[in-house]
């Protein structure tokens, strides 16, 4: 695509884009119709009923008409309800993340976007994605609120500190597209931008194999898990001082306060950063807080690792971290961690 060409509608490059555009054109047509109607009426009445020296000096005393009022209340009501229902359908689709979507990770910080592919590739202010694949991005912020905005995909989602939000899309057209931060985030807000590169699937595979992949999020998480000596307490079997973490992600848990919660990403994050916030029933508070010690990216990796731990602990064998991952972790002395 060419940036120099003057456009009125941006390129559409996702499955959602055509749906948003269709809704937009409908709303535009309605708006144009009523704007023109009112403009024409104003001009017509203004000319037709202008005061002339020899004409009537006062207007006709017409006080109103209830049927008319009902009609012109009902018409906008019906039209806006059509727009509401249609809009809600598009929004619902945007908010329902397909289960089979590949999970990318993103963290926003003043003033850059960091992305990570499921295969482990990391990018800053650039995102390479294959065409025709459903992709979801789990996002969080290191500092203030940001918002990931890809105009060509007609998609946008705020990125908040202390919380995970998700954005998903399926790209349909290869090309290079803008990526913006849409929520004002400070001095260099307008430079917190980048590019999305939509590639044919083969090209994407080439790109993946060309770059240095590094560790996948789960592998990085495994490394962090040992590096921070989490494994001294959280053992595979229930032999450690802390609960076993195998197969817990997404499951229900009973808390010391008596409530039951789902261990979703947000709960796992909170349990790492603020272990005391919601204690699991049956375990005393021994774990220190890791607030400020692990980056948001690292926490995302730990969660990915926890999710990779399958439930049947008996037959479970830990994933083998690729070479280079073990030096740091194994050297950490478990006794350093003071519960």
């Amino acid at each position: 695509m060419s940036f120099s060409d003057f456009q009125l509608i941006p390129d559409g490059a996702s499955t959602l884009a055509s749906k948003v555009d269709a809704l937009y054109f409908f709303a535009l047509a309605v708006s144009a119709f009523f704007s023109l109607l009112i403009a024409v009426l104003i001009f017509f009445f203004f000319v037709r009923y202008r005061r002339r020296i020899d004409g009537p000096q006062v207007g006709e005393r017409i006080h109103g008409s209830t049927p008319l009022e009902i009609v012109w209340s009902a018409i906008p009501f019906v039209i806006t309800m059509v727009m509401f229902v249609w809009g809600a359908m598009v929004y619902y689709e945007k908010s329902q993340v397909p289960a089979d979507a590949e999970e990318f990770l993103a963290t926003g910080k003043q003033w850059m976007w960091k992305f990570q592919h499921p295969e482990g590739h990391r990018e800053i202010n650039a995102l390479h994605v294959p065409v025709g694949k459903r992709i979801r991005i789990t996002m969080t912020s290191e500092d203030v609120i940001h918002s990931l905005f890809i105009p060509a995909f007609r998609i946008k989602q705020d990125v908040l500190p202390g919380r995970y939000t998700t954005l998903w899309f399926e790209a349909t057209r290869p090309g290079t597209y803008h990526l913006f931060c849409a929520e004002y985030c400070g001095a260099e807000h307008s430079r917190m931008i980048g590019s999305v590169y939509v590639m044919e699937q083969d090209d994407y595979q080439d790109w993946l194999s060309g770059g240095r992949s590094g560790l996948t999020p789960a592998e990085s998480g495994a490394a962090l898990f040992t590096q921070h000596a989490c494994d001294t307490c959280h053992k595979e079997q229930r032999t450690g001082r802390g609960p076993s973490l195998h197969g817990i992600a997404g499951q229900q848990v009973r808390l010391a306060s008596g409530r039951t919660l789902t261990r979703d990403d947000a709960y796992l994050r909170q349990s790492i950063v603020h272990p005391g916030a919601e204690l699991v029933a049956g375990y005393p508070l021994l774990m220190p807080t890791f607030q400020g010690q692990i980056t948001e990216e690292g926490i995302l990796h730990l969660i990915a690792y926890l999710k990779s731990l399958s439930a049947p602990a008996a037959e479970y064998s830990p994933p083998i971290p690729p070479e280079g991952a073990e030096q740091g972790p194994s050297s950490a002395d478990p006794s350093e961690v003071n519960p």
Partner: protein
Amino acid sequence: MSETSSVTVHAPGLAHHFDSYEQQKETSLLGMWLFLVQEVMFFGGLFVTYVYYRSLYPHAFNVGARELDVLWGTVNTGVLLLSSFTMVVAVMGAKHGSRGGLLAGLWGTIGFGLLFLGIKYVEYSSKWEHQLVPGLNFDWHGEAARGIEIFFSLYFGMTGMHALHMVVGIAIMFFMLRPAARGKWTPENHNFVEGFGLYWHFVDIVWIFLFPFLYLIGLASE
């Protein structure tokens, strides 16, 4: 306001733009109530914040509330209710032209109000000693620390705003003492006293809600 004959020589205490004491009284009461509606929304913002975080951190709020002194809270509730009663005495005094009643009511209200603030001071300083003042002096070892920090932020935010309203009220009452002694307020026009009474009772009502939701939650379950 049905009277069309304009009052050329104004009665004492009747502002120029009103036609009658009746209109003046109704208008001033309405104005005061509208101001209280504004106050309801002001404290409403605090209460909604409270409910919001309590639904996020139910356990922490119960634990945090155990750090407050139920006895002092109960005593203070009683003190404030008594001050509301003395305020009624003051308004009745003004209404019936009893200068003594008005002054006694005002002094009583000032006294109970100051007693309330004194007890509040004792409570605040004990929170300071226990390092329970968020931001300035906060240290909580143990579970649910973050929710407890929010609880105490709200505790100081809500009781602080309430105490500020009391300080303003007491200051106004000190300024009311002299005109009261000189008989400024008559049975025909004591709208200021009556309006101030509404304000004071409103401040009392805020405390009526603050007390159970800050001091009494989780008393049985924790």
